[in-house]
């Protein structure tokens, strides 16, 4: 049973990627109802609260924090195995607030996404420092857009070159796990735009096996740490 919470308030991409554009949030006695993609996958995003795709959410920090609190307090998620929180880029209000508001419950950790080049890594090192500062465990780093194989000649190009050793070197230096690398595949963007599951649409893609390996490692991390917590109790 999975819940996906989109706290990118200015740029909520999740509804479109899940094929849920145009859906509305319903209220009931038990709170806001998530929008379900499937019986076991519920989604919440500010995107569902906007009436037009042109509507901009031009809010300063405090108002964004208020909505995030509501999302956590008023959404009737039910029993959930995994709550995944998608965040905007940065280390600001949304990030501080979500960590703060979830501090009374247990956060397994953060998965940090980067692309291979130093321009991206230099920001991700800051994100890693943010996690340390707020005592958020790091499950690991994913190197996205990691190489492209030409569909015609099958040669690989490094469109975003890992000039300083990519995520691999950074993870070694900072002692965090590299969960995996995901190559560029035009089908990924297409699937997201159409709101379809890339994993179902392109089961043979190298990117699909990358994603699946990464997801497996995340599940293993969560299971291990859950087991350790139970042992400690």
């Amino acid at each position, binding site marked *: 049973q999975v819940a996906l919470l989109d706290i990118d308030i200015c740029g909520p991409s999740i509804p*479109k990627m899940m094929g849920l554009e145009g859906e509305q949030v319903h209220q009931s006695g038990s709170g806001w109802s998530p929008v379900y993609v499937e019986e076991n996958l519920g989604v919440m995003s500010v995107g569902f609260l906007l009436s037009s795709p042109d509507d901009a959410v031009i809010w300063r920090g405090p108002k964004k924090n208020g909505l995030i609190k509501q999302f956590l307090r008023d959404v009737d998620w039910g029993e959930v195995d995994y709550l995944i929180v998608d965040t905007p880029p940065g280390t600001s209000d949304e990030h501080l607030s979500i960590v703060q508001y979830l501090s009374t419950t247990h956060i397994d950790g953060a998965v940090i996404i980067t692309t291979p080049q130093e*321009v991206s890594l230099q920001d991700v090192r*800051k*994100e890693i420092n943010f996690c340390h500062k707020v005592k958020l465990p790091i499950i690991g780093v994913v190197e996205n857009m990691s190489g492209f194989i030409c569909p015609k000649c099958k040669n690989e190009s490094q469109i975003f070159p890992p000039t300083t050793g990519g995520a691999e070197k950074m993870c070694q230096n900072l002692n965090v796990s590299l969960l995996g690398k995901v190559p560029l595949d035009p089908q990924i963007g297409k699937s997201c735009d159409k709101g379809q599951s890339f994993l179902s649409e392109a089961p043979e893609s190298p990117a699909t096996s990358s994603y699946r390996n990464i997801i497996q490692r995340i599940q293993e991390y969560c299971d291990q740490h859950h087991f350790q917590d139970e042992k400690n109790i």
Partner: protein
Amino acid sequence: ERSNLAGVRHILLVLSGKGGVGKSTISTELALSLRHSGKKVGILDVDLCGPSIPRMFRVQDNDVHQCDGGWVPVFVDQDKSISLMSIGFLLEKPDDAVVWRGPKKNALIKQFVADVAWGDLDFLIVDTPPGTSDEHISTVEALRPYKPLGAILVTTPQAVSVGDVRRELTFCKKTGLRVLGIVENMSGFVCPHCSECTNIFSKGGGEELAKHAGVPFLGCVPLDPQLSQSLEEGRDFIQEFPKSSAFPALAHITQQILDGTSQQSS
């Protein structure tokens, strides 16, 4: 007392609804192109959490000094034709995270707009983080008295990116910021081995959005590994790689900006 922006002829903002689409890249290449057209350019980097501009000019280790008029911007070379200001120069260590809530960010942005001694510039390019929040509201408010030329909006071709940039267009409308045009970045990749073009991030979304919204379409910039490499190394792509695939598009975008400003004066 003369304001620090009094000598700046044109102020341009580079915006996007979406992260990772190439705002800092476009800001950097636009500055380099304008310099090659003989203009004096400044870049104000108001992305406080992820300041990319210093590294793109290989000056990430530079310090910022104060003078009577305020902060002295960092010059990228002895020519002094491009100057920069970014929080990147103020961090003790490059990996230090700036974990600030809105009010503290707003205070620094106000200072950045008022207290950098730019001197005389033809263009001041303001590079922003993604979104429509504190940084954007504060930057537009602080710049309002200086009548910015307008904003360039950057998107990648696919619908998920365009969807966020539509909201950025609304932001511009609501704040009275003129939209100079839309750039569709990462638009196609030409394999250097066999020249086959693949639309990795789809194609055409930026152009369609410009048409739909009634704003100028400034052009498609393809994915270009030489451009990525130049940015990594802080090199002058415009000077060194005029035959590379992204060059014509970047030059064309710059020309349209220049044409726009000369129309304004006449």
